[in-house]
């Protein structure tokens, strides 16, 4: 006797599909945004979905350990470092070029 997937209590499959959906939305933003900070926010969405994935596997595959949780903490720390450096670069880029549109920044283009 199997109940329909949509009214079951959320199992690993539900959680993983949700995380994949959030990651894909972040990926769409990464591919379509033009504002540098918008791109940074899409990357944050993707990092967040990846951390959620670690937590899901921690909870459903080996609930007695905390390894997935540690990985999520590392991801949060790396995301913080990434935002600090990204923001510094965008602010100084804006001071030089008066824009944060990534399609108009071509300083390194040969």
């Amino acid at each position, binding site marked *: 006797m199997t109940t329909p997937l949509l009214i079951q209590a959320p199992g690993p499959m539900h959680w993983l599909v949700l995380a994949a959906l959030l990651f894909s*939305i972040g990926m769409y933003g990464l591919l379509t945004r033009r504002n540098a900070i*918008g791109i940074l926010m899409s990357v944050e969405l993707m990092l967040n979905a990846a951390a959620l994935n670690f937590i899901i596997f921690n909870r459903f595959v080996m*609930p*007695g350990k905390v390894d997935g949780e540690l990985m999520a903490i590392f991801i949060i720390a790396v995301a913080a470092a990434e935002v600090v450096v990204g923001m510094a670069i965008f602010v100084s880029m804006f001071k030089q070029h008066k824009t944060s549109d990534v399609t108009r920044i071509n300083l390194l283009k040969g």
Partner: protein
Amino acid sequence: MLSETVTTLLFYLFAVAAVLLALGVVTSQRILRAAVYLAGVLVCTAGYYLLLDMEFLAGIQVLVYIGGIVVLLVFAIMLTSSPEFREERPPVHRNLLGLLGAGAFFVLTVILLARTKFAVNADGARPENEVAEIGRNLLNYDVGGYVLPFEIISLLLLAALIGGIVIARKKGKNAETGTES
């Protein structure tokens, strides 16, 4: 823990909210509004961590992500664009390519997930004292310990701190006196 029905209900409530807010993050034309939506997505994720019995991580998520990262993003937005700045809709070909890439990734992932059998063990007990367990793992230098990544992360944070200051600092203040700084 909560009853099964409540868990299911909360799961779908948070899922719908998170997906709608995430769509807002990637499509909103006002970048400041997108930052607020991003904060909403992160709150929903903290709710998920609570549903998955990770109370400590939910706290970290709210403190670091929402209290730190989103605030920093809002500062960056205010420093780099005027309030009435609007990002125009992406051109059709870019939109199509983005949809195609993201959609293909999603479909591929779901197919792979559906075909994989995971060694699910959902009823196992969580550690008695979760925070103490995390601390012991972070400082464990035996096989499977996390002391090396922990040290590397601390160095990375220091490097990011210095890098952020050096890149964004005001230049030319001491130019007329000729000193290097």
